[in-house]
């Protein structure tokens, strides 16, 4: 709408209101104010508009006219705030488009598919709480009969976490030993993180190598949420224990390795703390509370199981995700 037009409209609405009063005109006034704002009419011009329209309808004394000079003076400063608004918005838009590209780049850092072995069934659910994820997982396969899996949580969010994640991915890719030892890998990654990252930032990780011949999972842990081993024979979940300092804390850290064996039907469940961290009403969810949800879905495929657990937990916390969520299920068939 043209400015001229807006002026005329304001006159008409104000005159009608002065004549008849009534909510109708005020409603039209509110609608018009949106047009005025959209048309970049600053508040000081609204004041002028008002005085102009008023003068056409009624006697305006010299004193009241003078008072509008003061009001204009005041409103110019308010106009500055509104003009600033426009520039803030456009800056925000630009920043957000940068975020979007970063999110797309992050996507490409995640593996396209899960390792494929005839006697293994693997499922993954990975959902960021916000645009940019701080959770990361990776599968690396360099040997015929083994693959490695990493699951990590970067403490810190947004863009810095994304930068850290890309660093970890390439540090992992660059680790040039054909048969990866989990303790050595964490040792290597710890040095990279420690050297390159802000001291306030750190990373928790579980890194393991699954031997598909012997069905043994050898892993090391850096301050990460413990996973579970499901034993099919006695239908019980036990913690995948392991101690180790988070990555990025000290330059030289050792990570001890643990090993578990999987029988047919057994399962590994790896996850980040976002799976557990949820508030239900006023109560905090506990790690033990998870077990019935895991038990309930046994028998499905690994992917279906992971999907259903995610959906049921999300429902539980009223569709709100407070933290990034990652769960990997490795099922020996």
């Amino acid at each position, binding site marked *: 709408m043209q400015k001229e037009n807006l002026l005329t409209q304001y006159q008409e609405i104000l005159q009608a209101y002065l004549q008849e009063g009534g*909510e*109708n005109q*005020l*409603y039209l006034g*509110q609608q018009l104010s949106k047009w005025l704002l*959209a048309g970049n009419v600053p508040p000081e011009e609204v004041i002028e508009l008002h005085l102009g329209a008023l003068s056409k309808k009624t006697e305006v004394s010299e004193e009241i006219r003078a008072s509008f000079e003061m009001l204009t003076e005041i409103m110019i400063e308010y106009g500055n705030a509104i003009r600033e608004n426009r520039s803030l*918005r456009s800056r*925000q*838009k630009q920043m957000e488009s940068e975020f979007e590209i970063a999110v797309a780049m992050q996507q490409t850092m995640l593996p396209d598919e899960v390792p494929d072995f005839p006697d293994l069934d693997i499922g993954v659910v990975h959902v960021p709480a916000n645009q940019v994820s701080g959770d990361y997982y990776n599968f690396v396969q360099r040997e015929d009969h083994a693959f490695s899996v990493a699951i990590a949580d970067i403490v810190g969010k947004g863009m810095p976490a994304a930068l850290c994640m890309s660093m970890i991915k390439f540090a992992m890719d660059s680790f040039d030993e054909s048969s990866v030892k989990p303790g050595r890998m964490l040792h290597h990654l710890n040095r990279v993180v420690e050297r390159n990252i802000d001291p306030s930032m750190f990373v928790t990780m579980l890194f393991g190598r699954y031997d598909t011949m012997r069905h043994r999972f050898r892993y090391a842990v850096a301050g990460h949420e413990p996973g579970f081993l499901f034993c099919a024979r006695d239908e019980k979940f036990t913690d995948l224990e392991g101690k180790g300092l988070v990555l990025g804390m000290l330059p030289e850290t050792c990570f001890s390795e643990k090993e578990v064996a999987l029988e047919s039907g057994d399962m590994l469940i790896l996850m980040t703390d976002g799976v557990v961290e949820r508030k239900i009403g006023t109560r905090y969810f506990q790690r033990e509370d998870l077990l019935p949800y895991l038990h309930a879905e046994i028998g499905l495929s690994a992917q279906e199981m992971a999907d259903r657990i995610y959906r049921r937990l999300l429902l539980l916390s009223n569709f709100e995700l407070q933290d990034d969520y990652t769960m990997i299920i490795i099922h020996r068939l």
Partner: protein
Amino acid sequence: MEMPYCIPILTEQDIVTARQMGRKLAKDLGYGMIFQSRIATAISELARNIFLYADSGSVKINIIEKEGKVGLAVVAEDQGQGIRDIKKAMEDGYSTSGGLGAGLPGVKRLMDQFTIESQAGKGTRVEIVKWRD
């Protein structure tokens, strides 16, 4: 608690009626001119969203009391298509884009309390409260 005033929103004139009712109740409760206008404005936004984007809906206005405080509560409900992404609709910037949910961040900031529920295909329910100081 009194029975709430209820205005079905079918035509644009119903928006005006709802505004007027809100303004009147605010005046009865002793709110000043600005608060009367703010409540009318908030009701207007909610009613207009119903008028523009839902086939039918209503605005209920109620005087409420809690811990000795008196306030005005407004519930706007419709059986429309629902807001797909509430989080997005409550973000600034979205409000100027027009469309369902436009103006909601502004309404929220005008009021003391604001709750919204929406389900795709089932409709939207917004409740706002403004306490008298």
